[in-house]
């Protein structure tokens, strides 16, 4: 009897459920089967690589935090991106990790949440607290952030690595601790922003930075009369406030790649000394040098120097050749906009201009060689003239005539080759 009642009861319940089901579906919808995940690690290698490539940089960081094995997989599959640069920035003795694409768009910011927000999108940020599995209580704050940098760089290999220092509120003690970290040597560029820096702190950075690296001082005012024997020895040198630089400081440059000196106080006469030093120098001083174009009279800059002028592609170039003491080189001096550019080139090398156009100076080099020969003949003629005052002979006069004819012949050859002599300037047309 009981079982009979139970059957009737269950039948009743089932019938009610069947009647109510369409209403339930109408109001609530068909219940969805819980979606199972996708086994990422079981994807073919190429596909896994594609998935990682399509992820944003914070997503890649978070994926690597899922397990040590996943971190290793990301390191293995990540390839160096030429467009990416990594910055470890130090501000108020706290750190920010940044990844930029083509030095413009920011792709990743890793920072402490206590730090102020600096007009950056939320979604490109990873909070330092998320990296708890990468930190170590036995390590200092500095060591932790250097370790974060190495971890991020393993997952996102970047082409250029910069240590950016905001110099305000930077203590000597912190600087000493920071520079004592051997792993900090991975940074190839040291860049400074800020308003002030103490001379002793600056000295610590100069002592620490390898001469093969770049030292760029964008913001802070340099201490007046600052001196350091490595100040002009780095591969790339930039001083945003170069008022302290004396022209003779530049004579210590050796094989520098790019030099940028803004706010300097060089006079045209001092530039003239620099160009003369460059001509007679036995080693290469720099590849490019950009300086301010203030009160520049090129006639003074190039006084007593053999040079040619060429105006083409919207620019004016003053070309000088090195002396015979080293491999032949050309110094191209180009006043443009508010800057004076100096570039060292081999005679057969072409220069890529700001517009993207390419300019060769092979012809200017040939003309300079002839001009040098003419100058040497003129010096010779002067000597004969001086000798002639004491012993005026027919032979001397004949010699003078011969040398003068030789000079005239060389000049005619140049004129025939589209070279113009105007107002003491030699223009390659």
């Amino acid at each position, binding site marked *: 009897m009981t079982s009979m009642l139970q059957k009737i009861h269950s039948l009743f319940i089932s019938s009610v459920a069947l009647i109510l089901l369409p209403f339930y579906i109408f109001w609530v919808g068909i219940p969805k089967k819980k*979606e*199972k*995940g*996708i*086994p*990422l*690690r*079981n*994807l*073919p290698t*190429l*596909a896994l690589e*594609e*998935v*990682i*490539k*399509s*992820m*944003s*940089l914070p*997503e890649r960081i*978070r*994926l690597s*935090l*899922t*397990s*040590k*094995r*996943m971190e290793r997989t990301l390191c293995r599959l990540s390839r160096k*991106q*030429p*467009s*990416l640069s990594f910055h470890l920035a130090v501000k108020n003795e706290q750190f920010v990790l940044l990844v930029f*694409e083509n030095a413009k768009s920011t*792709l990743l910011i890793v920072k402490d949440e206590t730090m102020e927000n600096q007009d950056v999108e939320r979604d490109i940020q990873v909070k330092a607290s*998320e990296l708890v599995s990468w930190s170590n209580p036995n390590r200092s704050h500095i060591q932790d952030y250097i370790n974060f940098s190495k971890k991020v760089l393993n997952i996102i290999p970047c082409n250029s690595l910069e240590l950016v220092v905001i110099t305000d509120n930077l203590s000597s003690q912190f600087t000493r601790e920071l520079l004592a970290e051997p792993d900090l040597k991975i940074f190839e560029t040291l860049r400074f922003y800020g308003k002030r820096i103490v001379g002793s702190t600056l000295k610590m950075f100069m002592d620490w930075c390898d001469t093969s690296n770049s030292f760029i001082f964008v913001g802070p005012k340099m201490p007046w009369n600052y001196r350091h024997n490595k100040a002009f020895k780095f591969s790339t040198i930039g001083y945003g406030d170069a008022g302290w630089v004396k022209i003779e400081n530049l004579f210590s440059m050796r094989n520098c790649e790019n030099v940028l000196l803004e706010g300097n106080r060089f006079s045209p006469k001092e530039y003239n000394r620099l160009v003369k030093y460059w001509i007679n120098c036995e080693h290469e001083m720099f590849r490019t040098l950009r300086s301010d174009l203030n009160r520049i009279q090129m006639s003074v800059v190039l006084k007593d120097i053999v040079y040619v002028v060429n105006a083409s592609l919207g620019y004016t170039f003053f070309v000088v050749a090195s002396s015979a003491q080293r491999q032949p080189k050309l110094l191209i001096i180009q006043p443009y906009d508010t800057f004076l550019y100096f570039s060292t080139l081999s005679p057969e090398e072409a220069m890529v201009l700001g517009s993207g156009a390419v300019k060769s100076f092979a012809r200017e080099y040939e003309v300079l060689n002839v001009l040098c020969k003419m100058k040497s003949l003129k010096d010779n003629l002067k000597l004969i003239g001086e000798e002639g005052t004491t012993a005026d002979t027919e032979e001397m006069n004949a010699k003078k005539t011969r040398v003068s004819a030789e000079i005239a012949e060389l000049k005619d050859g140049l004129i025939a080759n589209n070279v113009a002599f105007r107002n003491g300037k030699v223009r390659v047309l």
Partner: protein
Amino acid sequence: MSVENAPVVDVDEAAIPVEKKMYYRFESNDKKEFRVSELAIQQSETLNRLVEAMGYTSEDVENKPAIAIENIDGKTLKLVFQWCEHHKGEAIPVDDGSVPKIVEIPEFDAKLMDIDNGLLFKLIWAADYLNIVQLLNVSCKKVANMAQGKTPAQLRRVYLLPSDEEDEAAKRAAQEAQDPRAREVEEEFEERKRQGGNSFF
């Protein structure tokens, strides 16, 4: 399955040029047969090379057995060929090196990939095996999109990733299941390494 009953992938007849086109026959590992146009096949580097090497004529295609694709099932292959037919004639994309990689999922592809993760996983394997670059791009982009706004713990669930502890446990289990002699050799090797020896021998 006979050719007559084969599930033919939807083809826009109006779009077919007047000249005679060749349709190749393929068979999945569960014996489902598909007819795919020559132009659609060009999206797959693997199949394109295969048919080029075979040098089939129109008669061969009809008379010879369908080309077997052993490791892809019918359901997945249908999706693959639908995608190839829709994108036939399109250029194979080249990676421009942008970070992150820019991949747009067109509406057709989004609808095609509105499938469960199990089938999506098979589709990715098929795209990889058949070397269909753009299908691989869009399907991987769909998988990458699953990471948006997720914490590492949520990512472990989405991507079925074991934690460090689970990885350790799996490693231990694998070691225990190993042949005892092999384990002995491994232990001996580890011992020698600890003692500073460079070579096992």
